[in-house]
C-alpha cells in the first residue's frame, strides 16, 4: 500500500512540475537581421604619411639642438678646468674639501636666511646701525671757515645767520673734543643729552634755546641781543677742555 502511495506521489510531483514549467515559460527571442547598408571608410594614406613626417607630431623623437659657438666655448673651458683640477693635488683637495665645504656653508646660509637671522652681523664686530646710506649732507661743519663767515654775516647785519654759524661752530668744537659725535640725523636735544658734564650741558642747553628761537622761531634779533649771545658762546668755549 505504501509502495503504491509513493508511486502516485512521484507521478503527481512530476506532473505538477511539468505544468508549472509550461505556465511560466517565455517565448524564445527573435533575432532580426540588420538591413542597414555599411560603408567602409579608408584613411587617406597620403595625409597619414604627411602627418607622420611632420616634426610637430613626432612626440617620441627629441629635438637635438646644436649648441652655439659661445656655449661650445664655455663647455670646452669648463672641461679644461675640470680636467686640470682633477689631475692635480690642488684639484683633489678642492674636490674633496672645498666644494663640500662651500655646499655646507651655502646650506647653512639658506637656513639662516629662512629663519630671518642677520647673517652679516655674525661676522661683524660693530653693531649694525643702518643698512641705508646717509643722504649727502648739505653742509659739512668741518669744511666751513666759521670765523670769516661769521664776520661776513655781522658786517651785513645778518645777525640771524651769525647766530646759526656760531651754533654750528659750537657743535664743531664739541665734536673736535669728542664730547659729541656729529651726525646729520641728530637733533640739538640729542647733542644736549650726549654731554656728560652737567655744567657744559646746562650752558649748551641755554645756547641751544637761543639758537632755536632765532633760527627756527624767527624771533627778531638786534645787535644788542646778538652781542649777548656771542658773549655766551665765547664763555662756553672757555668751559671746554
Amino acid at each position, binding site marked *: 500500500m505504501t509502495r503504491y502511495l509513493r508511486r502516485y506521489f512521484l507521478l503527481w510531483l512530476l506532473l505538477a512540475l511539468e505544468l508549472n514549467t509550461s505556465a511560466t515559460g517565455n517565448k524564445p527571442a527573435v533575432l532580426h537581421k540588420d538591413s542597414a547598408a555599411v560603408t567602409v571608410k579608408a584613411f587617406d594614406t597620403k595625409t597619414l604619411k604627411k602627418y607622420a613626417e611632420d616634426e610637430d607630431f613626432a612626440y617620441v623623437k627629441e629635438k637635438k639642438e646644436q649648441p652655439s659657438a659661445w656655449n661650445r666655448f664655455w663647455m670646452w673651458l669648463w672641461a679644461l678646468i675640470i680636467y686640470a683640477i682633477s689631475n692635480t693635488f690642488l684639484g683633489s683637495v678642492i674636490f674633496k674639501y672645498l666644494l663640500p665645504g662651500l655646499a655646507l656653508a651655502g646650506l647653512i646660509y639658506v637656513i639662516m636666511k629662512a629663519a*630671518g637671522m642677520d647673517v652679516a652681523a655674525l661676522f661683524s664686530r660693530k653693531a649694525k646701525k643702518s643698512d641705508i646710506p646717509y643722504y649727502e649732507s648739505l653742509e659739512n661743519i668741518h669744511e666751513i671757515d666759521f670765523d670769516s663767515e661769521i664776520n661776513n654775516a655781522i658786517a651785513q647785519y645778518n645777525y640771524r645767520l651769525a647766530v646759526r654759524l656760531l*651754533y654750528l661752530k659750537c657743535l664743531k668744537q664739541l665734536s673736535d673734543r669728542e664730547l659729541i659725535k656729529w651726525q646729520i*640725523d641728530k*637733533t640739538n636735544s640729542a647733542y644736549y643729552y650726549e654731554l656728560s658734564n652737567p655744567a657744559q650741558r646746562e650752558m649748551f642747553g*641755554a645756547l641751544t634755546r637761543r639758537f632755536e628761537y632765532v*633760527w627756527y*622761531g624767527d*624771533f627778531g634779533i638786534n645787535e644788542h*641781543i646778538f652781542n*649777548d649771545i656771542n658773549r655766551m658762546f665765547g664763555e662756553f668755549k672757555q668751559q671746554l677742555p
Partner: protein
Amino acid sequence: MEEEIFEQRTDLSKLNHAVEHIKATLAKIIVGQHETIDLIIAGILADGHILIEGVPGVAKTLTAKLVAKAIDAKYSRVQFTPDLMPSDILGTPVFNPKTTQFEFKHGPIFGNIILIDEINRAPAKTQSALFEVMEERQLTIDGTSYKMDEPFMVLATQNPIEQEGTYRLPEAQLDRFLFKIEIKYPTLEEEILIITQQHQKKNTEQLSHIKPVLSSQEVVDLREQVRGFHVEPKILEFTARIITETRNHKSLYLGGSPRASLAVVSAAKAIAAIKGRDFITPDDVLQVTPAVLRHRIMLTPDKEMEGVTPDDVIAQIIQKIEVPR
C-alpha cells in the same frame, strides 16, 4: 629766560596753565605714561582723533575716560562689538505716528568727545560708517547733512590685531587718526606704585573727584592759537622729506599720505605748545613722527614675516634725513 631776551610774540600763559592742569589731573590716577599723556594733549590741541593700542589691562580705556572727563564737553561712549550696526552709532530715522513723519534719532556719535572702546571688535562695515564723520566732521543720512559740534574728537582704544576676535581697521580709517599711541607695560617701579595706590583705594576715590579743567570753547580757542604757530620752510621741507621717503622705502608696501605730512606739522605745533613755544623745531617733528606714521604705513609681507615693526622702519628713515640747522 628767553622771554627776557626776545620780545614775546604769543601769549601762551593760558595754554600752559591748561596743559599743566590736565597733566596734573591725569597724574592723579595714571601712573607714568608721560609720553602718552603728552601725545593725547597734543591730539586735543591739534584737533585730531587718537587711537590707543595696548594689550588688555594697561589702562587704555581709563586714560581715554580721564581725558574725556578733563574736558567739560558732551561725552559719549560706544562699546564696539562684532554685531554692531552703523545705525547703532550714527542714528536712524524713526517714524513718529503722531506727526506721521520720520524723525532722525541721533546716535552716540553726536557728541564732543567720543570714546570708542575696542574699536577693532566691529567689522569693516561698521568702521566705514565713521569715515565721513571723522574726516569732515559731518554726517549725511538720507540726503541730510548733520554738522558735528566743535570740538569733535574720537578717542578709540584697540587691542593688538593678534588678539582673538579682532579685525584689522581699514587703511582709510587708520589714516583719519592723527596718532596711534602704543601703551606699553609699566616698569617695575610703576607697577608697584599702581598696586599700592589700588591697595590704598586712592584711584577709585580720586576718579569720582575728577573735575573738568577745560571748557569746550577753551579747547576751540586753544586749537585756533596753536594753528597759527610759526613754522620755518626748512622744517616743512624736513617733514615732507620724511614722508616722501616712506613712499620709496624698500621695506614698505604703503607709505604716508599727504594727510600724514599735514598731521606731522599739526602735531608738532601742539607739542611745541606743550613745551611753551610758538614755533616748531626738528625735535618736535621727530617726537610726533612715529605716532603719526606707525598706523599709516604698511610693511611688505617679507619684512612683516621677519618681525620688522613700522617703528623700526620709521627709525631707519629718520636716520637718513638731515636735520635742518
